[in-house]
């Protein structure tokens, strides 16, 4: 979607939702959306709604429309609430409950040059997983865990206030000097995150049934064809290596996860786990 803004002020406000990754393997259709000024407000005509309000109101509706469009483009797909490390051998999915530190970990990895492709949703369509393109949404508290120069990058990024008035920054992985590629690939590893904030990070193999059970609360199934979607989810977990990561100190987690993105073989991976 290309959003045309009536002035620089609106463009700067809408920059929060700017997303511009390299898309591999998909034919992209461009949709032009035009924001018009209407008295003291803005108006946006979407294919399924007309929205009037401030820039944050329009952004909420654009998010909704984008999500609905994603579901329509992938009928029968499952949406997994999780983050993605994009590796040529297969994606590494990070799944965990809200507040477990998924975004902070992935942001930390991205700041160190790792190929993070998404931190919110993954579209599982048959055997292939595709991270849904969206920039990081970084809360103030996460800045404490980043190298100084990376924190400065975040602070220079577009932001919006949350319900408490605290800033939430929108940061593209490309801001850390790396390519941001969105591609459909099989899943090589599933990492279930639990929090161990302040403690040492620990990584261990987990049984596939346990991984599937922990994944299920974090998925949105399609309206139709749920058995097939669940079957694809089960197949994804069965074909991947499954791990539990108690995420404590981020440097520990990075060290434990490094073999996943290097050429380590299975024996080395198991030996390296706690």
């Amino acid at each position: 979607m290309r959003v045309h803004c009536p002035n620089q002020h609106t463009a700067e406000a809408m920059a929060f939702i700017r997303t511009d990754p390299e898309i591999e393997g998909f034919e992209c259709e461009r949709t032009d959306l035009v924001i018009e000024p209407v008295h003291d407000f803005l108006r946006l005509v979407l294919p399924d709604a007309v929205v009037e309000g401030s820039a944050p109101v329009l952004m909420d509706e654009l998010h909704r429309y984008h999500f609905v469009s994603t579901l329509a483009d992938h009928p029968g797909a499952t949406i997994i609430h999780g983050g993605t490390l994009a590796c040529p051998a297969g994606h590494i999915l990070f799944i965990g409950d809200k507040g477990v530190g998924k975004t902070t970990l992935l942001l930390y990895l991205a700041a160190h040059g790792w190929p993070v492709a998404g931190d919110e949703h993954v579209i599982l369509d048959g055997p292939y997983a595709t991270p849904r393109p969206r920039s990081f949404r970084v809360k103030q508290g996460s800045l404490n865990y980043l190298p100084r120069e990376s924190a400065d990058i975040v602070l220079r990024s577009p932001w919006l206030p949350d319900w408490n008035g605290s800033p939430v920054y929108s940061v593209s992985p490309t801001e850390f000097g790396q390519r941001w590629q969105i591609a459909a690939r099989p899943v090589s590893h599933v990492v279930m995150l639990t929090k161990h904030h302040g403690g040492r990070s620990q990584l261990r193999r987990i049984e596939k049934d346990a991984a599937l059970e922990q994944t299920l609360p974090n998925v949105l199934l399609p309206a139709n064809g749920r058995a097939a979607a669940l079957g694809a989810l089960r197949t994804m977990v069965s074909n991947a290596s499954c791990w539990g990561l108690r995420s404590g100190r981020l440097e520990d987690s990075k060290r434990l996860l490094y073999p996943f993105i290097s050429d380590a073989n299975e024996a080395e991976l198991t030996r390296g786990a706690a």
Partner: protein
Amino acid sequence: MNIERTALFQQTAGCEVSHMPDGYVVYQSDREMVHYLNPAAAMVYELVGQKQPLDGIADYMKASFALPATPCNEVVACLEKLIAENLITPC
């Protein structure tokens, strides 16, 4: 549970079945439950759907898996589990 050798069962309505290479995934929308049936359980479930009694299911399993004896006890155990999960009900 005492299951008669000639007892007939039926697949519970409202179950969505996905055929996987290694078994069945069965989704029950009203209970929001998902079940995985291994190949043997999937075969029993399928034969129930074809209105086969316990005897018929056990004979079929014996032939399919080239078993030395008819697996009546195993089929009964499988049927009991399917009943417990409300995947099949008596006709």
